[in-house]
């Protein structure tokens, strides 16, 4: 295993730009690395803001742990706003851990790394490269930029001032520079400035590699990101609205800066030598194609909307696979993988994993509880250090110029409050990324009450959607509608999502089809449409919708997965497997896509591969009962591995809390009919047929005798696990909390219920008088109210209310809602056929 690791960060580098350049032979160095090592799409995190992401890369931890929450932060000492500093990082970065282990480490330009940390090598902070004055004026190096301080002078001389650059440097990036009118177009100067900054970082890095001993070296370049923000709109193909003369002069800028990075990479590889493990990576991509947004939202960090969700990863070295692609890598995996390269344990508190697939010799990463509690000099700052306000001001200016932050206004207090709110917003997005929606919602509710911002409300809606908080979703959507003034295209999409939450897929479909007029360019819309078609078993429509989504965004993992399901359901197994592979290739942490892949493989009779895919599902989502059950069957029947089958069986029995579907309501409210529908659709129902069909229920009662003893005995409920069972409403209160329940609550007009019950009991007199005991009606109502109150206070219960008359009037719609609610692919046609309208004999309207 290599003892030297070189980590090179290219902010915003994207394979979609790199691949064509490599194909043309314009990035030969990276191309050779690709051939000699592994490549991957590196999934970014949310929010995709560089200081947050690069800190996650360096720490292996998400922002709620590492504490860097945006581009800027409040400076409480000076009552102002400052660029985010290394002082705010709460946990050890990889270089701190390596310093503690005596591994010689150097870091250049990492964002954020100012002030430079006193590690056991050289650190040059991210405030290093910015020229603050004209070339003829002094250009002092800001205090805290270089560690150790005695190297300051050397590094000051290594900086390149933009004025030093000539057309010899700029012409390869701007071949038609003569056509630029520089007196009113500052873009060439801007390009020069960014290029000079990249050269400064490169000079510092190469100097260290030439002059200092090193084992770990990390270099960060932001020039690709900055060039993309400035010039990607001019990148070929020419977009509508981009004037020809501007396209001509700026169209080569993005590819030019990539090529320059390839040239710098060549030099770094020369200096690193063949024994070094080299990692080139980016924190996110940058849309170079039709996905480039036409306009950016007017909000802090608005330019981040140009970022794409996949960065690059290329790694080569002694123990690294050659010419291979690996899957499922995220930014969080870099630090754990580097620790493993040095033979060090990975912290259990790190959110990332070791990229074991990258290695030729199988590796068993070792673990440590946490590096945070390991004593010894790590080179982290003492808590009371403070930054240089002059340097902070320059960095702040650049962030404003790039559009990442608004220019600070005169009112410091207000600015600080605004920044604080914004950092809470970013933290809420980190929680959302972690699926901790309750924490995210709490923060978003707090900041929304202080400032009514559209982005806060939209994020809040996503939380409510995930938590299935329908009234809160509705209320927030109403607020959004008022705020929006018809400007955002997602309103109808959100309305559709809300209808789905209410298990009204048909209405949701109508809403989304309406949304297509405005938001037809959004792949998510077609994915949502496709999902509804899948539920309605309209597989061709679903296929069409997912294909449309993929035409818009070929990197949409959800669309690939949806397409896989539509193909699978149409028995096109090989194509389904291919689409599922595309989905997991883009997003490895996607248990549902692995599940679909396994299903397809099973149908192809590729049992071993199917078992592998199901095993991945179980690893990613151990609670997936079906995957375990399929594995039991596969190991038992096809792979001859009883031990493994037993292991999964045991896991299901001991560890997985099942879901029981309960069909409830008052007696004679349509519960038997519902049971029939579910059975016809293919659901597993629990019934003993002890109570036989009679003239009152000619198709049977679908009851289970033990239900009657629910008040005193709940042990039999285990038999109902993953099945549907009929339990009348008054008995719901006795259901134990240890199971999760999906309750289908049947409602029917009380008078109809009573009439039907009287008929069943043979009370003709009451029927003739059309008079039913009011006491009975009140008692039933009370029982219904009690059951409803129990449902509301039970977090382990999901409910779908269904009206008996609606089942008879619109069986298709109800069947679709049931599939949505149960998250099951039942046979809708058979469910509809099971509804017998002739049994609706006690309709009040017809008897009045």
């Amino acid at each position, binding site marked *: 295993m290599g003892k030297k690791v070189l980590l090179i960060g290219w902010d915003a580098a994207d394979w979609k730009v790199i691949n064509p350049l490599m194909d043309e032979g314009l990035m030969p160095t990276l191309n050779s690395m690709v051939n000699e090592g592994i490549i991957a799409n590196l999934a970014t995190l949310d929010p995709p803001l560089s200081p947050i992401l690069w800190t996650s890369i360096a720490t292996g931890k998400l922002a709620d742990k590492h504490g860097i929450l945006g581009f800027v932060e409040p400076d409480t000492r000076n009552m102002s706003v400052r660029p985010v500093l290394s002082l705010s990082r709460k946990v050890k970065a990889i270089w701190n851990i390596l310093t503690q282990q005596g591994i010689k480490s150097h870091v250049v330009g990492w964002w954020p790394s100012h002030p430079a940390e006193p590690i056991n090598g050289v650190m040059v902070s991210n405030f290093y490269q910015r020229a603050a004055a004209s*070339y*003829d004026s002094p250009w002092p190096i800001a205090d805290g930029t270089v560690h150790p301080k005695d190297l300051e002078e050397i590094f000051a001389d290594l900086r390149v001032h933009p004025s030093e650059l000539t057309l*010899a440097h700029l012409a390869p990036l701007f071949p038609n520079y003569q056509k630029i009118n520089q007196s009113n177009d500052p873009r060439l100067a801007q390009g020069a400035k960014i290029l000079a900054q990249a*050269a400064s970082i490169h000079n*510092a890095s190469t100097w260290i590699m030439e*002059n200092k001993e090193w084992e770990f070296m990390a270099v960060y370049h932001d020039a690709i990101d900055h060039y993309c923000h400035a010039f990607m709109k001019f990148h070929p193909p020419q977009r509508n609205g981009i004037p020809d003369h501007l396209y001509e002069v700026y169209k080569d800028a993005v590819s030019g800066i990539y090529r*320059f990075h390839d040239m710098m990479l060549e030099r770094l590889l020369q200096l690193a030598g063949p024994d070094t493990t080299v990692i080139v990576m980016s924190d996110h991509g940058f849309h170079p194609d039709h996905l480039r947004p036409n306009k950016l939202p007017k909000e802090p960090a608005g330019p981040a909307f140009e970022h794409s969700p996949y960065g690059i990863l290329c790694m080569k070295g002694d123990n690294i696979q050659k010419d291979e692609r690996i899957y499922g890598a995220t930014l969080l995996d870099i630090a754990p993988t580097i620790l493993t390269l040095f033979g060090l344990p990975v912290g259990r508190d790190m959110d990332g994993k070791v990229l074991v697939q990258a290695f030729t010799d199988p590796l068993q990463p070792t673990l440590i509880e946490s590096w945070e509690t390991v004593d010894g000099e790590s080179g982290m700052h003492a808590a009371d250090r403070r930054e240089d306000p002059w340097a902070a001001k320059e960095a702040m200016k650049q962030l404003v110029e790039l559009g990442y932050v608004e220019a600070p206004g005169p009112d410091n207090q207000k600015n600080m409050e605004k920044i604080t709110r914004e950092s809470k917003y970013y933290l809420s997005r980190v929680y959302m990324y972690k699926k901790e929606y309750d924490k995210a919602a709490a923060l978003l509710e707090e900041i929304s009450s202080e400032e009514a911002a559209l982005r806060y409300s939209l994020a809040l809606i996503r939380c409510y959607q995930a938590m299935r908080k329908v009234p809160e979703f509705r209320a927030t959507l109403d607020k959004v509608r008022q705020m929006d003034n018809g400007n955002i295209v997602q309103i109808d999409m959100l309305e559709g999502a809300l209808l789905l939450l209410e298990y009204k897929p048909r209405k949701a479909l109508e809403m989304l089809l309406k949304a297509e007029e405005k938001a037809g360019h959004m792949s998510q819309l077609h994915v949502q449409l496709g999902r509804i078609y899948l539920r309605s078993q309209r597989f061709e429509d679903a296929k069409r919708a997912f294909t449309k989504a993929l035409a818009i965004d070929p990197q949409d993992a959800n669309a690939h997965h949806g397409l896989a399901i539509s193909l699978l359901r149409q028995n096109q197994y090989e194509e389904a497997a291919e689409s599922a592979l595309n989905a997991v290739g883009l997003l490895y942490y996607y248990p549902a896509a692995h599940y679909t892949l396994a299903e397809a493989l099973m149908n192809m009779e590729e049992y071993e591969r199917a078992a592998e895919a199901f095993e991945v599902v179980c690893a990613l989502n151990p609670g997936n009962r079906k995957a375990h059950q399929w594995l039991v069957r596969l190991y038992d029947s096809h792979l001859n591995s009883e031990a493994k089958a037993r292991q999964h069986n045991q896991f299901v029995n001991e560890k997985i809390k099942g879901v029981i579907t309960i069909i409830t309501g008052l007696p004679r409210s349509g519960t038997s009919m519902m049971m029939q529908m579910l059975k016809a659709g293919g659901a597993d129902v629990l019934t003993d047929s002890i109570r036989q069909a009679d003239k009152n229920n000619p198709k049977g009662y679908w009851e289970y005798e033990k239900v009657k003893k629910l008040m005193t005995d709940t042990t039999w409920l285990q038999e109902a696990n993953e099945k549907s069972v009929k339990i009348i409403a008054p008995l719901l209160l006795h259901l134990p909390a240890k199971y999760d329940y999906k309750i289908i609550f049947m409602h029917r007009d009380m008078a109809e219920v009573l009439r039907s019950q009287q008929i069943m009991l043979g009370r003709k007199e009451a029927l003739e008088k059309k008079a039913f005991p009011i006491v009975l009606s009140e008692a039933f109502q009370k029982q219904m109210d009690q059951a409803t109150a129990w449902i509301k206070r039970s977090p382990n219960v999901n409910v779908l209310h269904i009206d008996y008359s609606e089942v008879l009037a619109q069986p298709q719609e109800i069947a679709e809602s049931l599939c949505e609610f149960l998250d099951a692919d039942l046979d809708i046609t058979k469910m509809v056929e099971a509804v017998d309208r002739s049994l609706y004999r006690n309709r009040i309207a017809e008897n009045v």
Partner: protein
Amino acid sequence: MDEDIKIVDATQSVPFEIPPEGSLGLLALGAVAMKPWRKKRIECGYEEKLIERVKKEVEEAKQRQQEKKEKMEAAKLKKEQETKGQDG
């Protein structure tokens, strides 16, 4: 850093003549090329010209800023006078 360092064209195995105006390739060599390039600029009188040019640019920028300021003030004055005229 060794000031007498020679940059060699690897394809020809001969010393590489550093152009005073520099090049992207030279920039990509990193630290090792910086001092020879700057030295070359001084030797050729290119550096002097560069500083002159920068000074001129700074002057021009200042002048442009001054003109802009004057224009804005003139426009402001004109607007004030027009407002007064309307009031009168």
